[in-house]
């Protein structure tokens, strides 16, 4: 399998959306989940999407990650317009360019922690030695040495999220999208996860975009965007990252 050529220009931002809309329609009930969002996110940024429940955070994140299609508008990621990619090209693109961390149950229960972490590399056909050395290194960094062979069911929630984070960053994606990665966790555990992601952000330069209600995560964001009813109502840059 070869990597698809991605038109990366140094000037291209990590994400650029133009006039982005998502409209759901079920049995005549129309929900405008995302309304006319124009957003440019720089590479290497650490961005939080906040807002009340139902404000469109997840919907926006899903569109940026190519998990659902916009009703209107365009999305560019890393200089590539993904709006019209076919579904299978989108899948391949996600595999190569995007890392995901979800709220919970991120890991495949039948694979070990290590196999979960290297899952996308397996799909990409990366040779075992390379896979192994990258994952082992990462496991040391996330403080999971010795737990490589465990199944997710035998890991704590925090440990599972660490593996999910390792899996998201291991392929050196253009972008990591994390939807409420710290929900369901106690504050000490979630602070640890935030530290971890912040460190990957600084050390690897990986762009992170979060959707969250976690105030600590909001506090640590370098850019803070608030959505209300699908619109951006606040967009603030903070120069003192935690």
């Amino acid at each position, binding site marked *: 399998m070869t990597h698809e050529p991605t038109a990366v220009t140094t000037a291209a931002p990590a994400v650029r959306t133009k006039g982005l809309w998502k409209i759901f329609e079920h049995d005549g009930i129309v929900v405008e989940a995302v309304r006319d969002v124009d957003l440019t996110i720089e590479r290497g940024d650490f961005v939080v999407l906040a807002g009340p429940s139902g404000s469109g955070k997840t919907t926006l994140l899903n569109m940026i*990650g190519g*998990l659902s299609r916009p009703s209107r508008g365009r999305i560019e990621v890393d200089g590539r317009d993904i709006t019209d990619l076919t579904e299978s090209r989108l*899948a391949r693109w996600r*595999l190569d360019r995007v890392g995901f961390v979800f709220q919970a*149950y*991120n890991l495949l229960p039948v694979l070990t922690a290590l196999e979960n972490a290297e899952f996308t590399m*397996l799909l990409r056909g990366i040779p*075992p030695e390379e896979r192994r050395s990258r994952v082992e290194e990462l496991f040391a960094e996330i403080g999971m040495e010795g737990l490589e062979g465990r199944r997710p069911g035998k890991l704590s929630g925090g440990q599972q999220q660490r593996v999910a984070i390792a899996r998201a960053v291991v392929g050196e994606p253009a972008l990591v999208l994390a939807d409420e990665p710290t929900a369901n966790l106690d504050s000490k555990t979630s602070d640890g996860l935030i530290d971890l992601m912040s460190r990957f952000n600084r050390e690897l330069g990986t762009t992170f975009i979060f959707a969250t209600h976690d105030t600590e995560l909001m506090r640590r964001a370098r850019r803070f965007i608030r959505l209300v009813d699908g619109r951006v109502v606040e967009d603030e840059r903070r120069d003192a990252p935690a």
Partner: protein
Amino acid sequence: MSRFLDGHAGVLGRLALRNVRRQGRRSILTSLAMVVGIGLLVFSRSMADGGHEDWIDAGVRLGSGHVTIQSPDFATRRTLAERLSPTDLEAALAAVSDVGREGGILETATRLEVRGLASSPGGALPVVVAGVEPDVESRFSQLDERLIDGEYLPDGDELAAFVGVDLAERLDLQLGSRLVLTGQDAAGDISGQLVRVRGIFRSGLPEVDTRIVHVRLGIARDWLGAEGSATSVALLLESSSLVDRSARRLGQLLADVPGADVLTWPEAMPELEAAVRMDDFGDYVFHIITLIIVALAVINTILMSVLNRTREFGVTRALGMTRRDTGAQVMIEGVLLSAVSGFVGIVLGLAVTWVFFRNGLDFSGLMENGMEAAGVIIDPVIYPKFRLPTLLGSVGFVFAIGVGASIYPAYRATRIEVAEAMKFEA
């Protein structure tokens, strides 16, 4: 993890394998359905094959053998005019001895058969008189095993006759009774022969017990003016599976003898062939119903496992698996599950059939005086027969079930929308 397990195919295979293993209890339940279904199939198939071998055996023994050599028109006309001439008979017997024991020929019965009338002071009835070689015939037809009175064509008694119990009753015959056989001889004239009843048999089959009379070949030839000839040479083979091969060989050897035709038992006795086929058909209907039940059980298992893993499929899709990958993963899981449980089913079915029934399954409680099918008396004890084609067929069925039962669940898995799936908790 070896190198060739990398890339999509390897990942899918590994995921499928692990998932089948993880769903231990559910897999076992499916396995059970498979085991019972396939086991039943293997069992019933072996028993049916065994039963049919019995039918064929009984049919060929009482009838024209596995393979028969006769004049081309004898099958339809059944008169002495259509007999094997002495030279044709010689050629036929030469061909038979050429094929010989190595060709699977166990017995060779030369017969001179004629339709005629049996009369006694008590009355007259139409019969089929067969002039036979007693020692060969006793092994061939085993009719002498059904003797109830007297002897089977004793040595030195040229005029001995062996008759069925119903004929004896209706013509008021006892051992020693005189009987006149009348038939059309080789010259086309009606001629009679006096014989004496030396033995009485009961086959249990009314058609046989009223119609068949055995006499010695020599006396039949004298009576009918057919010196050195016969109406048929009937061959008993080691197994019905050798029929086609032997018939082909004999056909080649007798290619330049136009007066001698080689017929296999299905050709010579189409009604027996039809009965076996009918019974097979009944079996197939039963098998198909079994298979449908098994397939539904497998579909249910796989579908449940797909629906329970919606979020998981959402995750793998988000990470970069395509709809096709997901469908393939479910297909592999289904085929794997079916293969494993189907294999167990086949082995178990064979084992149970072998352990409990290799000494025969006795149906005699169900039938009185044996059972009759297509004019053949059947031993009420059926022995299972294990045939490779049957086993391969079962393996094929298992595979078909696996593939067939996985299609719908796999399709459902491909329809999962990632964004929707991620709303599921677990």
